[in-house]
């Protein structure tokens, strides 16, 4: 058990789901940057995770101005309420019933009564965890909803899906109740972290700031579509091939509702690029509260790497990212197969942790073997990009979903051109956004998702033509220095923090 820093109060409480300080990745690096970038502010952080066993040791050295850290695990907790026969609070269940009726309408939001922490903690004022688990009214309500709405034949699956889906809400309410005071809450995603932020905002009357790097609900959709554990028990006669399974749909709607609740509570909603801002507004964010602050990086850290000048591009394609389906490592491997036909000595480095989805990592290795490039694709685990960039010819991002990837900015700062999929802000980063930016030129190549042929074509175009590669390298350096510096990002957050703390 780690010794976490503890304090009685903080200026800003960061609400982090599945990121810093346990999980490495772009968002975690960003959080680390932000805390270190404001040394005068006393930060606190709540790490929200699935189960304690899913995480190893801390992956980041904690900054000195992070004065408070605590964890909240949503599943696998030991202390469950004793089973006790009870009827349940009828008025509170009526409120829950009304809430579920509004979920049938477009753009539902949580009722006022559910914004109060007492609703989740006080059995007289609302529905506490014990009532949710064991009361007769809870059973009746779940059974009734199953009969009215569920088109999956298994009640057992429905019952446990509903239980598992809703249990975290009481865990988060408990965390919110016990959390030390803060003057500003800063959630780094919607979802559970955003829900906690909204509960804290409503119960303590302190502002909530939301910074969304990817679009949380969209990423959960990808996970839900991809997951095999969500059951569909309908037989061939009952199944409508044009419908996704009831439970998948239920999970998606659940996360959408959490997102909407968080948007409603946030005073400012930050996204990384215009496309994400539009998406947030579509998903229920108030347009006047939504703003764009692009990521920025410490250019000075990467600038010395440019000194490793190559006459011809090194034949190393690096993919920096977690080995998970959303990064679509398989398309990178397939693309590398095609590139290897033309450049037999090409190497593909996959730099990122594999522990998040070991099954997917195994599939990627097997794919490399089936394509007979197992000797050319190297899974190298986590490494500092500083050690990788000098030998890298191109950074490749084959992701199916991204925000504004820090790794692209880091590669640019190190003078490495990028070939990326046309997702998130990648096009904006590679090709430029606006007349001034576009005039700088292309800093690499852009391709569609799931298209190894295009990935190979763009990579070969740059690798086979040193002149084009050098031009892309220069454009990358110019663009990152002009538009994506630490200072530009910190200045914007400084304004938001000052306004929130005032």
């Amino acid at each position, binding site marked *: 058990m780690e010794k976490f820093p503890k304090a009685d109060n903080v200026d800003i409480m960061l609400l982090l789901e599945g990121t810093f300080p346990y999980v490495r990745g772009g968002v975690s690096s960003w959080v680390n940057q932000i805390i270190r970038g404001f040394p005068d502010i006393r930060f606190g952080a709540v790490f929200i995770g699935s189960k304690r066993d899913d995480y190893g040791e801390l992956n980041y050295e904690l900054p000195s101005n992070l004065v408070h850290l605590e964890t909240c695990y949503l599943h696998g907790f030991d202390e469950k309420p004793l089973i006790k026969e009870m009827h349940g609070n009828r008025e509170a269940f009526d409120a829950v019933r009304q809430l579920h009726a509004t979920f049938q309408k477009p753009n539902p939001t949580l009722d006022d009564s559910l914004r109060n922490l007492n609703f989740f903690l006080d059995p007289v004022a609302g529905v506490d965890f014990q009532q949710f688990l064991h009361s007769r009214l809870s059973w009746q309500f779940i059974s009734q909803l199953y009969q009215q709405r569920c088109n999956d034949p298994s009640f057992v699956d429905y019952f446990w899906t509903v239980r598992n889906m809703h249990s975290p809400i009481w865990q988060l309410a408990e965390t919110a109740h016990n959390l030390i005071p803060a003057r500003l809450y800063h959630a780094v995603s919607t979802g559970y972290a955003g829900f906690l932020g909204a509960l804290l905002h409503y119960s303590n009357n302190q502002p909530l700031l939301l910074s969304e790097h990817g679009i949380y609900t969209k990423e959960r959709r*990808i996970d839900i*579509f991809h997951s095999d554990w969500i059951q569909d028990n309908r037989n061939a006669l*009952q199944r409508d*091939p*044009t419908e996704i399974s009831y439970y998948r749909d239920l999970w998606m709607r659940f996360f959408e509702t959490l997102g909407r609740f968080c948007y409603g509570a946030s005073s400012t909603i930050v996204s990384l690029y215009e496309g994400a801002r539009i*998406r947030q507004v579509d998903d229920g964010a108030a347009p006047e509260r939504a703003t764009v602050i692009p990521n920025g990086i410490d250019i000075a850290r990467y600038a010395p790497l440019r000194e490793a000048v190559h006459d011809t591009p090194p034949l190393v394609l690096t993919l920096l990212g977690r080995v998970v389906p959303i990064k679509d490592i398989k398309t990178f491997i*397939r693309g590398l197969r*095609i590139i290897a036909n033309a450049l037999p000595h090409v190497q593909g480095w996959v730099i990122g942790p594999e522990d998040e989805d070991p099954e997917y990592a195994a599939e990627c290795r097997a794919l490399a073997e089936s394509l007979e490039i197992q000797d050319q694709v190297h899974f190298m685990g986590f490494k500092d990009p500083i050690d990788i960039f000098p030998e890298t010819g191109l950074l490749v991002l084959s992701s199916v979903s991204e925000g504004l990837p820090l790794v692209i900015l880091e590669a640019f700062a190190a003078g490495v051109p990028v070939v990326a999929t046309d997702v998130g802000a990648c096009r904006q980063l590679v090709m430029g956004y606006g007349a001034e930016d576009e005039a700088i030129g292309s800093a690499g190549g852009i391709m569609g998702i*799931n298209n190894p*042929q295009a990935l190979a074509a763009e990579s070969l175009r740059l690798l086979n033509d040193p002149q084009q590669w050098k031009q892309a390298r220069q454009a990358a350096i110019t663009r990152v220095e002009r538009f994506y510096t630490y200072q530009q990002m910190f200045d914007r957050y400084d304004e938001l923090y000052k306004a929130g703390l005032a």
Partner: protein
Amino acid sequence: MLLFLVGHAIASACLSLLLTSALPRRVEVRRRSCLALFFSFSFFIPVLGGLGMLSALIYFRFFQRFDERTEFSSVPMSPFMHEAGAPAPGMGEGGAWSRLRAVNLPRQIRIKALLAVSSGGGQNASRLLQLATSDNDDEIRLLAFNLSDRREKVISASISESLAALRSAKGTEERAPLYRTLAFSYWEMIFNDLATQDLAVFFSRQSLSYARQALETGGNDASLLVLTGRLHLLQGDFSEAERAVTAALEHGAHRDRVIPYLAEIAFRQKNYSGLKRFFETDPLLRHKPGIGPVVKFWMG
């Protein structure tokens, strides 16, 4: 005489009215014509006509229930179907294509179209999923990617399992079936359009290489020979393709399966008279789905 005629006319009219009233409803519009016909029967064929019409009345009134039969009848759903809920509406491939291409349609309808297509298999579904991965709508794109990935994953898993088993296999007896599985698995990728362009070229080479090893170690196998022929055909090596397909025929491949490939090889070599000769050897081909219309086109 006059009295008899008047009495006979009244009796005939009564009988005719009685018969007309017994007619089914669906001939109601022509009731007057029927009345006239019945009357003429009764009046001009006094005994036989009346008896005939009375028998007709008894038969139609008591043995034929016209009124109870509706024009369109349907078989009610079985109780099991009721329990299973309404049958799934589904969506045909053509409908799904058109909906997915209509970018102005609501997202939900387009997602339904995508799901409908993916529930089937084959090349068309793969092509459509590939098309949808470049859609402007994020949701469509991601769903298409996911569905495509699921299809590819099944075949990739089979390849990986066979490769792993091949590493630990001892002797040709263990290896031969693994070579065979690998040849077909790599081919599946091409056949389902999951590998295109350069990747398809690589997969065809792999498939051919394993097919050859399977033939060398496991002996002649008609299905493998057909596969070899198809791979040569794909690579444009027509003479090798012809040799393999002909060998498949000699080793027991069904004529219906092999003739279309021989005809295709002839066509690709611009040997149109040879193509017709192949079709002539199997007259039943014109009735087979898929190849049937091609045969009819060439043979008239």
